[in-house]
């Protein structure tokens, strides 16, 4: 509570006694991007693994958490606290240290690097938690809309995946990601943490991007047919070959008129081709009132993360593609 013309000096609090069991952060090995403004209530911390898992596969992208892990070493690029020396020799700190951490990683190689690049420049969409090698998840005190204090993430001024550097005879490929924190106070005076019994990076399943791509002709022909290859976005694993009939199902896909958004009926889906060249032959109902007119586009994507997961496809999200209709 603010009082007019009164400076808050924090008087009446602050003792130096400590207990026998103390928290000392271990090596930082990962970070979690959570939707901006997230405040975990105490009830959500009881089984934080379940809370985080549900967030990581949320159907809604804006509510989804993303876990970055496998950090191998810290390149501490933090700015030191600024000190001023008076003419008479006394020293005073004029500002706090600014945290700027670079973490090197190898897991996932170029796929992970490209995934990270998707988050560049989106600092204001997320708050961030860090986790250490002893499964402590570190964040900050956050107050929810009702004024109740919970656990939340810190703010970044910059999330920066560095350009990769080629491997040498003595070092592997260099992948590095940088975090510059907006406010060191969030990880000092207001630091909060929870100790968990799982590794957020390896024990929480995350959503993979799926790429839909026309196999040859990129247009829907006059019979309403088009052939689509389905691959994991990075690495190009052929999901038709891997999942077969589980993915070759009209219920796994969604088609809409790109202009109106009206649903277009997918009449059938067939596995075609062979081996690594397998793809899906789609047929759309060209008598559907929402079917685009010639020269217009329809949008094809896959069903939601949860619908796919229920069908045994865990966990995928397709990037929609637009297909011209003849």
């Amino acid at each position: 509570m603010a009082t007019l013309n009164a400076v808050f000096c924090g008087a009446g609090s602050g003792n130096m006694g400590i207990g026998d069991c103390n928290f000392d952060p271990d090596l930082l090995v990962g970070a979690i991007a959570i939707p901006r403004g997230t405040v975990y209530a105490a009830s959500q911390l009881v089984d934080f693994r379940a809370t985080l898992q549900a967030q990581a596969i949320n159907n809604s992208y804006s509510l989804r958490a993303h876990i970055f892990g496998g950090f191998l070493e810290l390149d501490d690029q933090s700015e030191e606290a600024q000190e001023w020396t008076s003419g008479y020799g006394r020293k005073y700190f004029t500002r706090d240290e600014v945290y700027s951490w670079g973490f090197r990683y190898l897991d996932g190689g170029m796929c992970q690097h490209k995934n990270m690049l998707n988050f560049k420049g989106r600092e204001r969409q997320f708050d961030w938690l860090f986790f250490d090698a002893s499964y402590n998840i570190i964040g900050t005190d956050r107050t929810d809309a009702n004024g109740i204090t919970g656990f939340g993430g810190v703010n970044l001024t910059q999330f920066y995946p560095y350009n990769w550097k080629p491997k040498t005879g003595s070092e592997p490929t260099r992948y590095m990601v940088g975090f510059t924190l907006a406010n060191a106070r969030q990880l000092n005076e207001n630091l909060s943490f929870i100790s968990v019994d799982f590794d957020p990076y390896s024990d929480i399943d995350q959503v993979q991007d799926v790429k839909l791509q026309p196999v040859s002709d990129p247009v829907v022909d006059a019979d309403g047919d088009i052939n689509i290859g389905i691959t994991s976005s990075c690495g190009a694993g052929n999901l038709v070959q891997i999942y077969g009939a589980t993915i070759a199902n009209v219920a796994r896909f969604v088609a809409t008129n790109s202009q109106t958004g009206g649903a277009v009926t997918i009449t059938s889906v067939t596995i075609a081709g062979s081996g690594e060249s397998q793809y899906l032959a789609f047929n759309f109902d060209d008598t559907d009132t929402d079917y685009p007119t010639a020269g217009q586009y329809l949008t094809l994507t896959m069903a939601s993360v949860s619908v796919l997961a229920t069908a045994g496809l865990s966990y995928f999200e397709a990037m929609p593609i637009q297909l011209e209709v003849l």
Partner: protein
Amino acid sequence: MKNEQTIGGISFNTEYVSGITEDQFVEKYLKHAKKHNLMSRKTDAEKATILKEYYGQLKPKAQPEEKQAVSKQTTAGKGDK
């Protein structure tokens, strides 16, 4: 999904199938089979016979009452998107 059935390696939207005649179905999927080299060792007449069997299996899947209850959106899982 209520209105999906896979027969002979083809995942059909049964709600769609219930709205077309057997002849339309056979014509459509005869063309589809040729395009994608399905049932390649069969003659057209044999393929048509097989497709009529498919139609017979698919048609009862979507009864009129059920058709009214299932919207076009949910046909392709759109309600969850």
